[in-house]
């Protein structure tokens, strides 16, 4: 089978999956859909690997499909990497979905939408023309929207999230379309090849504005601040596997779009474009990390952490473009590799985390951290996998998150002092933003793991939780395995990433990073041997554990009531809650988070000097939402109410409009002659 045939067959398998999802009896729907999702993922992934290996793009065209433009599929090595990324998340997520099915995924609509969502994501990076890209992009939005709304009958939050998501994703698509059309306006066709050819001859104003417009559009899909507000609403409301797909794969396609625009179509640009991206990425990373650190809803925390991680990737991309603009071509390739590695890693660990959160929700019925606790004892495997994935997200070596951050740091290190003053100022700031982000991420995930999985259960639901079905555990396990493997032997993914980066940066030298198991930066001094570190850690761990065993009088510890400074009875209510855990961070960043505190004191009737009960509530809203979106919505509503006066029901008024228009036309004609 040639790659072209596989691409088409994969797409057809996805559509077939939708058919199975719609037609099979309820019990089998999700499993049927999932099985064809695997087929689709496998076919597309094999095609992608073939392209990455041969570095020859696959080009397909059909004039019959898609009126007036036809469909253009171009699978370049760069797109192939994203196909692999989507497949990496989609296959385990659909496995997880089989177990998760009872939670609303087994309706006809959802079971049909899931394979279509995956298929559209698999095809987006293969789109070879403006029309094809926009169709697939919007299909991806549509099917994910349907999946976000799965729970609409029960949850007002899901309805609201759906509305926000639909509106913002559409606005984003509108920006993207305008950006593409600005470039395509005078070109001979609407294929990306033609557009890229034409774009090189456009003036700097058009190119710059197209890039900025595209950055906004793709940034909103990538969850870039301040266009992220849909993300912390939609990701939590979607079913677990869907959030994993959205966060792990779909969001990465936003970054794909920025690279597509900046590198593939425009062929790079001046430094300010990229410093803008760097700044937005840094702001996103910080903002996301800060909100993740102060969230008390497990999936909302993960959603904000997505904004954080994608922000890091956009930072790396910004550095890459900036270095390319200052003629540091090898380093530019290195930074692009860093951006892509960050995305792949994010797909693995955030996919695993969202799937785990889905398992938790499946087992306990809640995502509120303050209702969880003690899950590691009750769901040992799921819990352990969550811990590993959380460690990977916190960039702890030797897991994959660390590799990405290391590459990002190296890019920033070697990018500082690249020549322009703006860059020299920006990059140290970016490093500190990245560092603070890293610290806050640790806070967020220690909180998530500590409050959610350790200690005593905080509710009956958590008390009674049991381990989830094997399919769900296996789904998470695959991704957690990927976190470990990619962390210990990053060399496994690097050839593919380098091929992809080189195809995006056509004409630039390849950043040869890998030599066997180590990372050796070409052209600069920098090396890391994660495998060695991993082995050293394991050896050290075994040695210390052995030492303890040898020295201790009795190897197994005695189980006792916790001491707690001498308190007799330890209850779950005495533990630190998620909110109290986040309180110090929240207080430090009061100005950014602007939490709303509510303290209700009730006094006994006899005296106001005693307090009968006290409830304290603190909520952290999204400042950007409150400051940027809500006023716009309010203004539009206001205008809508005013505009109703345009249509008061009076036939005289209506005729008056026409008369006015006629008079204007006559005057215009009189003046023009």
């Amino acid at each position, binding site marked *: 089978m040639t790659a072209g045939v596989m691409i088409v067959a994969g797409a057809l398998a996805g559509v077939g999956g939708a058919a199975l999802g719609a037609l099979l009896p309820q019990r089998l729907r999700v499993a049927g859909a999932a099985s064809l999702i695997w087929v689709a993922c496998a076919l597309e992934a094999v095609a992608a690997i073939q392209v990455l290996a041969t570095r020859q793009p696959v080009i397909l065209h059909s004039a019959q499909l898609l009126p007036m433009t036809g469909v253009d599929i171009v699978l370049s090595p760069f797109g192939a990497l994203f196909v692999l990324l989507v497949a990496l998340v989609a296959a385990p997520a659909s496995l997880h979905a089989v177990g998760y099915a009872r939670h609303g995924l087994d309706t006809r609509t959802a079971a049909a939408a899931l394979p279509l969502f995956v298929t559209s994501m698999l095809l987006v990076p293969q789109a070879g023309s403006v*029309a094809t890209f926009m169709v697939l992009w919007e299909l991806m939005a549509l099917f994910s929207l349907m999946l976000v709304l799965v729970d609409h009958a029960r949850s007002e939050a899901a309805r609201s999230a759906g509305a926000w998501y639909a509106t913002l994703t559409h606005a984003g698509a509108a920006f993207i379309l305008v950006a593409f059309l600005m470039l395509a306006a*005078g070109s001979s066709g609407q294929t990306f090849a033609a557009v890229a050819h034409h774009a090189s001859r456009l003036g700097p104003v058009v190119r710059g504005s197209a890039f900025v417009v595209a950055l906004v559009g793709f940034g909103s899909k990538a969850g870039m601040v301040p266009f992220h507000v849909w993300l912390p609403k939609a990701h939590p409301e979607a079913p677990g596997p869907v959030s994993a797909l959205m966060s792990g794969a779909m969001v990465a396609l936003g970054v794909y779009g920025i690279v597509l625009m900046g590198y593939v179509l425009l062929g790079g640009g001046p430094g300010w474009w990229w410093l803008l991206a760097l700044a937005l990425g840094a702001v996103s990373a910080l903002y996301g990390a800060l909100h993740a650190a102060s969230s008390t809803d497990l999936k909302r925390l993960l959603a904000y952490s997505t904004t954080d991680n994608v922000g890091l990737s956009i930072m790396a991309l910004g550095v890459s473009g900036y270095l390319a603009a200052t003629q540091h071509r090898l380093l530019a390739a290195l930074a692009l590799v860093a951006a892509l590695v960050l995305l792949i890693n994010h797909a693995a660990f955030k996919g695993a985390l969202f799937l785990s959160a889905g398992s938790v929700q499946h087992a306990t019925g809640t995502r509120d951290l303050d209702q969880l606790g003690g899950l590691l004892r009750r769901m040992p495997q799921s819990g352990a996998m969550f811990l590993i994935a959380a460690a990977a997200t916190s960039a702890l070596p030797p897991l994959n998150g660390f590799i990405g951050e290391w590459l990002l740091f190296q890019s920033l290190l070697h990018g500082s002092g690249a020549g322009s003053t703006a860059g020299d100022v920006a990059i140290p700031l970016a490093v500190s933003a990245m560092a603070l982000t890293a610290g806050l991420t640790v806070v967020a995930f220690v909180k998530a793991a500590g409050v959610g999985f350790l200690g005593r259960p905080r509710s009956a639901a958590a008390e009674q939780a049991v381990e989830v079905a094997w399919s769900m555990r296996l789904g998470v396990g695959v991704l957690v395995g990927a976190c470990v493997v990619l962390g210990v032997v990053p060399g496994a993914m690097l050839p593919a990433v380098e091929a992809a980066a080189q195809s995006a940066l056509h004409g630039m030298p390849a950043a040869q990073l890998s030599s066997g198991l180590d990372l050796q930066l070409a052209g600069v001094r920098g090396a890391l041997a994660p495998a060695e570190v991993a082995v050293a850690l394991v050896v050290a761990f075994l040695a210390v554990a052995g030492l303890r065993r040898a020295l201790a009088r009795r190897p197994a510890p005695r189980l006792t009531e916790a001491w707690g400074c001498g308190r007799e009875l330890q209850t779950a209510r005495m533990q630190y809650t998620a909110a109290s855990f986040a309180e110090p961070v929240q207080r430090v960043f009061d100005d950014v988070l602007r939490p709303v505190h509510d303290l209700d004191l009730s006094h006994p009737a006899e005296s106001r000097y005693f307090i009968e009960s006290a409830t304290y509530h603190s909520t952290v809203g999204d400042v950007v939402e409150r400051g940027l979106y809500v006023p716009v919505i309010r203004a539009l509503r206001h205008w*809508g109410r005013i505009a109703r006066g345009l249509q008061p029901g009076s036939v005289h008024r209506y005729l008056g409009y026409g008369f006015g228009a006629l008079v204007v036309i006559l005057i215009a004609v009189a003046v023009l002659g």
Partner: protein
Amino acid sequence: MLTLLLAIPALCAVVYAVVPWRRALGWLGTAAAAAVLVLGVVVSVGAVNRPAVTGLSGVLRADALSAFMVVVIGVIAVLATWQSVRYLDHEIARGASTRRHASVYGLLVQGFLATMLLAVLAANLGVLWIAVEATTVVTTFLVGHRRTRTALEASWKYIVICSVGIALAFLGTVLVYLAALHSGVHGQNPLNWTTLVQESHRLNPGVMRLAFSLLVLGYGTKVGLAPMHSWLPDAHSQAPAPVSALMSGVLLSVAFYAVLRFKVIADGALGPDFARTLLVVVGLLSLVVAASLLLTQHDYKRMLAYSSMEHMGLIALGAAAGTPLAIAAVLLHILGHGLAKGVLFLASGEVLLTEGTSEIDRVPALLSRRPVLGGIFGFGLLALLGFPPFSLFVTELNMARAEFQVGLGWAAALSILCMAVIFAALVSHGRRLLLGRGEKEQRQSTARLVAIPLIGGLAGCVFIGISAWPLATLLSAAARIVAL
């Protein structure tokens, strides 16, 4: 053949006038519509390769553009007449309508079809005008068919505003005639479109400027373009659902067809910029008005009406670009919009029948309570919002592309902005209407007979969005006729 095309609905109308109403007679209208559709396809096949087919001693003329419009009329008419049967059954059952009224309804709907067919088949621009004016006369009673106070109010506004508009269009037609007479066009009939197009470069530009402005304003009234759009939400919300579907789905487009025909002449006489400016202005104005009034809309039928206005504004912008690509997109958009809006109006009629109100807030959680109907409404809304795979996405994309290509990028960007606002508004209304928890015992199923054509309509809209191969040659032939 063209005469036969007109004769079918006319004969059918006669049958309704003569034979007393019985239920089976309702399906006659559907059969007539289906026959129109079939003949439309036959004419289309013929018109693709030849410049034009004529009939009735030269009064009728069908080129690819006319043939395409006949197909559009036929498709929506099949849907609308199919649902008419149920509408009449229901009205008679609840005593709101008598058998005699049902006959009148059938007669008028067929008359409506006949006048629209005449409009798109007329060789003579005067006849075109007569046919468009006749649609107003015929549909007034259809708008007021429910004979409620509000229905009467709507029909009054409809006929008064449209008559004025159409009178302006007549003045415009007269001025074109004058320009033709005084530039030495003396052919067989100076109001014949083909003659005028051939001689358009010789027409007096001063007269043509005034004439075309009046024509855009006049026919624009019937298209529902601002500022003469005001009748539209009232009439569409008060008319019986099948009539709303026909009006919104095809009548507006038929009126726009007239604008397109005149645009070719104006372009010949004045160059492309004049018509372009005018259409961009009215198109954008319509979009802004539609967006503004959709923001706080509380009635789902009015919501659909304003959405029609939005789409007509988009079509006007597409026509302003005027390249073959733009015109092909405009025409496909007309078909796609007709299907989607027709389905939506019919579905909203079904909602109104069962829920008894057209207030959005009093019909919550439709998806949970009436999954099939809610699903149809939801998918229809997605189609209107321009999501793929519905054809409106492709056509909007290509219209925008064409606008960017001719330097109207700013207008396209503004229209995209308005569409984003409209999107937000429709999403918020659709959310209130469709989503949420419904009481279990309220769960109702939808009659299969009702659902089938609606699902079919949506499927058609998807089909032409994915692959318009049966239409591709027809579209490009039609686009060549009126494109720059």
